[in-house]
């Protein structure tokens, strides 16, 4: 049976993008933080046990979880509830789904069992949905907040819709390397490599300002140039399903296996390096607009 097209179409996504841009331009935001004093521990597109994180993981111990906007509670699962009727386990722990405006479904996961306000139907921004807990497959206590765009059928980076973080720290480029056949040549340490095709691995992180806690949130934007030519330009904005795999960067789709090494480095691109000198440049930008660039020169033999 063929999948039918949905009634919502792509328009809501476009509307939302416009709304988000307008909101950002005016200093407002489309949604509010679901927790007071938010401390992102992992951000959209980072790896968590075989999966991309589809939202933002906010560290919290027992904080009140509030609806990020007006909407309607459309699904609730409370691990302690007798209505948990199926054998299907929840690696999200206890969670709620709130239908926000413009076809945006907000997922609030990792709630303390027994705390989910499942009696709610309509919610206002700030309505209490539960308390942040340690339920489901999540390290530490906190809330996973994710936003699914029903119209475009994809996850949207919630940090693009939430109020800007007060962050004046430049992102970090911790290392970069050329990798081939199980060997890795760290740029800056290796002076020359044999000619051939290499994967370019980069380890970037956005070190948070003091209030931020655990984790190494990814930056929002990454650009890679080789000898002045743009090889890759990655924006952590949306994630969608393609042929049974969840992929980042729909324009140049990358599944987790394509993109992330077990050690957390990102496989940004592949490139054939010919004999001579090559200059590799990386530019990263975080959600607050702070940028950092780095370049390396290497001899190809």
């Amino acid at each position: 049976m063929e999948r039918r097209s949905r009634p919502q179409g792509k328009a809501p996504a476009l509307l939302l993008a416009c709304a988000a841009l307008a909101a950002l331009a005016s200093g407002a935001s489309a949604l509010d933080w679901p927790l007071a004093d938010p401390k992102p521990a992992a951000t959209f597109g980072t790896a968590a046990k075989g999966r991309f994180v589809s939202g933002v993981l906010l560290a919290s111990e027992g904080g009140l979880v509030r609806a990020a906007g007006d909407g309607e509670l459309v699904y609730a699962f409370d691990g302690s509830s007798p209505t948990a009727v199926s054998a299907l386990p929840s690696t999200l722990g206890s969670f709620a789904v709130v239908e926000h405006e413009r076809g945006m479904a907000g997922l609030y996961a990792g709630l303390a069992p027994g705390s989910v306000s499942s009696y709610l139907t309509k919610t206002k921004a700030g309505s209490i949905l539960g308390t942040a807990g340690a339920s489901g497959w999540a390290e530490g206590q906190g809330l996973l907040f994710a936003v699914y765009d029903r119209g475009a059928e994809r996850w949207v980076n919630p940090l693009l819709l939430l109020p800007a973080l007060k962050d004046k720290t430049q992102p970090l480029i911790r290392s970069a390397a050329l990798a081939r056949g199980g060997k890795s040549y760290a740029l800056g340490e290796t002076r020359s490599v044999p000619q051939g095709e290499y994967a370019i691995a980069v380890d970037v992180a956005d070190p948070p300002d003091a209030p931020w806690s655990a984790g190494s949130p990814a930056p929002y934007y990454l650009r890679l140039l080789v000898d002045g030519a743009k090889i890759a330009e990655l924006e952590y904005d949306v994630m969608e399903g393609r042929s049974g795999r969840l992929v980042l960067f729909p324009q140049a789709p990358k599944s987790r296996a394509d993109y992330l090494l077990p050690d957390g480095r990102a496989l940004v691109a592949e490139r054939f390096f010919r004999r001579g000198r090559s200059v590799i440049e990386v530019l990263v930008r975080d959600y607050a607009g702070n940028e950092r660039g780095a370049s390396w020169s290497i001899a190809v033999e």
Partner: protein
Amino acid sequence: MEDTGKRRLAAAAVALAGLVYFFVCARPLPKALVLEPRWARTLGAASGEQAAPAAGQPRPAASTATAATSSVAPAAGAPVAAGSAGLAAAAPLSASPQGGFDADSGWIPYRIAGNYGYFDEEGKVALKAASPFGVALAKGAYVAYDRLPESLLLRSASGRELARVTEAGYPFFSAGRLFVMRPGQSSVAEIGPDGKALWSRDFPSIVTAFDASPGLALFGLMDGSLVGVGADGAELLSFAPGGSRVAGVYGCAVSPDGLMAAAVTGLDRQRLVVLERRSSAFRVTYHRWLESDFRRQVSMAFTEDGRYLAYEIPSGLGVYDREKRAESKIAAAALSGVGLSSPERGLLLALEGGGASRGLLVASPSGRRLFTAPFAAAESFLARRGDALFLGMADGSGSASILRMDFKEE
């Protein structure tokens, strides 16, 4: 004189008619169906002990069962007839009788009051252990796990290690198949007997409903779509029922033969959709707008013979008859589980009520309540093997008991 002869003739005719009726037309009075308690056994508090038999050993015969050890259990031998009180019940859904991890069917799995394990039809407890965080149980194997398992240990029902599963996530069995829900709730792998992934798949949004047969695993997603995956991981069904203001899948079920799929979908309005596999494709063969507004998982299951679909409705139980393409309703209190059936008896079994007041509901698919057996328990489970029902009850203090009752005609 003539009148007397006529009267005798008439009397003889009446007597003859009576005899003809008695021998030719009369039917015996229908027998009453009762549930007769056979034994009850106390499981005791969580201990972590294991009393596993040697692998492959046949089950020992009865003898260890004790009579009526629970205060809520009726005395052994006292039949429970329609309308009488004294039973307890709970929630787990049945797994398909066929299939890999259900193949070793000597033991009946249970999970109650923080304990899990296996018992046999005569009440011998083969395994009793405290659940660390969660446990997935099939008839022939189980996986106990903590909250953040990096890998999983698959054990036989006798406790023997079978394989290590190198998948992070939470395991669950259905239709004798083992699956692992990965972190994030939108990626699933099916695991083979050697612990290796047979296939894995990411879904575009989170999984909110699931059911499986040996040949079809059906996933309902938050985005409102249904995805059916074959035993080899190939996609057999992809369908997004529309028509509701808010899309979503709140419950789904697959018939044991894998030829029927059903789901409760959407909000405003909620809808029941039944699909049937014809040649290679699934087609919608029935749908109905529902009065319900469930915003949580909805309990639903096909009967073991696949003829009926039972699903939760606000007033009890809706029953869809696949052959007649018609529905009936069975009034019931809040259901805590739908999913057991007795095809031999043509019965549906459900658990109703909640809190400390629960009940076992036995009904005919045509919508008639046959038995209501109320009981007091904070937690309970129900299993069936042939005409034997096994009812687990826990009182909230950690102690639990199992009661066996057999369907019997009297």
